């Protein structure tokens, strides 16, 4: 890929990833976030986190399916870090706007409420991944260890989707779409591995 194309695509990724936040900030400043601005912020940042996590999880299967798309790997770290960024903002909306920085409220929520627990678990699982996202960390840890650690992203994504299901009322199926996407992306891995093994054996 040409360097200029890459720069263009990276710029596009940055703009795309920052877009939901820009809309929220604009809405907050102009007070146009609708009737319930607090839930709008929490829902938008939470949803964006999950979407970005799923997009970053789509990179590997896409590359395996279409070898021409190998360059996608150059975007995975950016997507993952943006997912972590939105998870952090999402957590902050909870801490500031729902819990009002009240430690007792947060302690009760984290210990008593499973939807908060699962969300918190997802965030804590993403934390070491974000911390070891630098090239320096990869080198220091060695590729194998780094890869092993970063398998946690699967658990984090599942915890995030569970958090979504436990947040909505029973009977509401809004999380279904993202759940199906995650299931496909997770299943694609063993399936593609089997296909590849067959191919190499045949060759």
């Amino acid at each position, binding site marked *: 890929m040409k360097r200029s194309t890459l720069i263009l695509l990276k710029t596009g990724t940055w703009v795309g990833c920052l877009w939901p936040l820009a809309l929220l900030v604009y809405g*907050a400043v102009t*007070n146009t*976030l*609708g*009737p*319930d*601005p*607090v*839930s709008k*912020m929490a829902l938008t940042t939470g949803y964006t986190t999950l979407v970005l996590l799923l997009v970053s999880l789509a990179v590997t299967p896409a590359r395996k399916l279409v070898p021409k798309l190998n360059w996608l790997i150059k975007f995975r770290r950016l997507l993952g870090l943006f997912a972590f960024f939105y998870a952090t903002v999402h957590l902050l909306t909870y801490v500031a*706007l729902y819990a*009002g920085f009240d430690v007792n*409220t947060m302690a*009760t*929520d984290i210990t*008593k*409420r*499973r*939807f908060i627990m699962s969300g918190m678990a997802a965030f804590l699982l993403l934390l070491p991944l974000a911390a070891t996202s630098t090239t320096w960390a990869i080198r220091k840890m060695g590729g194998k260890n780094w890869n092993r650690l970063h398998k946690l992203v699967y658990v984090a994504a599942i915890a995030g989707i569970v958090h979504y299901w*436990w*947040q*909505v*009322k*029973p*009977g*509401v*199926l*809004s999380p279904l779409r993202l759940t199906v996407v995650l299931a496909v992306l997770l299943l694609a891995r063993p399936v593609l591995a089997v296909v590849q093994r067959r191919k190499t054996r045949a060759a």
Partner: protein
Amino acid sequence: MLIGKPAAIPSSEITCKDMYVNRRRFLRGAAAAGVAALGAERVGRLISPGIEALAGTKLQTVKSGLTTTGEDLTSYNDVTHYNNFYEFGVEKDEPAMHAGALPTRPWTIRVDGKVAKPKTFDIEELLKLRPLEDRVYRHRCVEAWSMVIPWVGYSLSEFIKQCEPLSTAKYVQFLSYYDSKVELWASRSAIRWPYSEGLRMDEALNPLTLLTFGLYGEVLPNQNGAPVRIVVPWKYGFKSAKSIVAVRFLDKQPPTTWNDMSPGEYGFYSNVNPGVDHPRWSQKVERRIGEPFYKAGRGTLLYNGYGSMVASMYDGMNLKKNY
């Protein structure tokens, strides 16, 4: 004291004019969208009784001694664009977009069960049964947000008198309109329709329980439960059934929609109570709709502040068990 003095100004005069104008434009759009969504064969039926004529209709109202004072009203726009009406979609802004499809005329309420004899009431008859009162009530959703809404209607007890319930009637069940061909969005959630709600007889007869036909001095917009709904201000909002087509008097507690879906989260009583948490969140505080995001939530009041009118009905009852 929270209840008692009637408002000095009729609520219909409080909203600023441009909001009224915008609302009409919106309702026209909603009606048009509904017509478009329904397809050709229904268009004639929808246009002829004139949804448009209904939507902007001002109601003749009188003052009420049961109105809530000392609260700022939630704007007409927020009251009509932030709705839980899952038959028209699970997102808060969906009912405003989709409820134009609801055919509000002709409309009847079927009354049966433990009554002298089953009857059917026409909506026009119900509108004339008693003078329509302006009643401002706080509205507290189980999801921890709240509004202040100027409803229009009269006490449900006035209607119940006309139903002639037998002495064996201990509960009242309300069933909402359901037609899967009109409410195309209902099947997107795994809920058993029609929506069903219920009250104990004494709760239904409490003068605060309102048979509601309008808000802001005008006919209810469809997304708010047109043409007739129940409003029970001391209970979480889901107890206030919308667009009701049947009222049943029963000798035992009726099945109710959210209680059936998740009994641990949504009790039959569901009285507003800051002391009993929802399993997934605290009910101690609420967000007032329309307020900026940085404003702190306000403390939720027991029985939503209507304790002086309703607390005696629950004397001796364990509110933690009977949530």
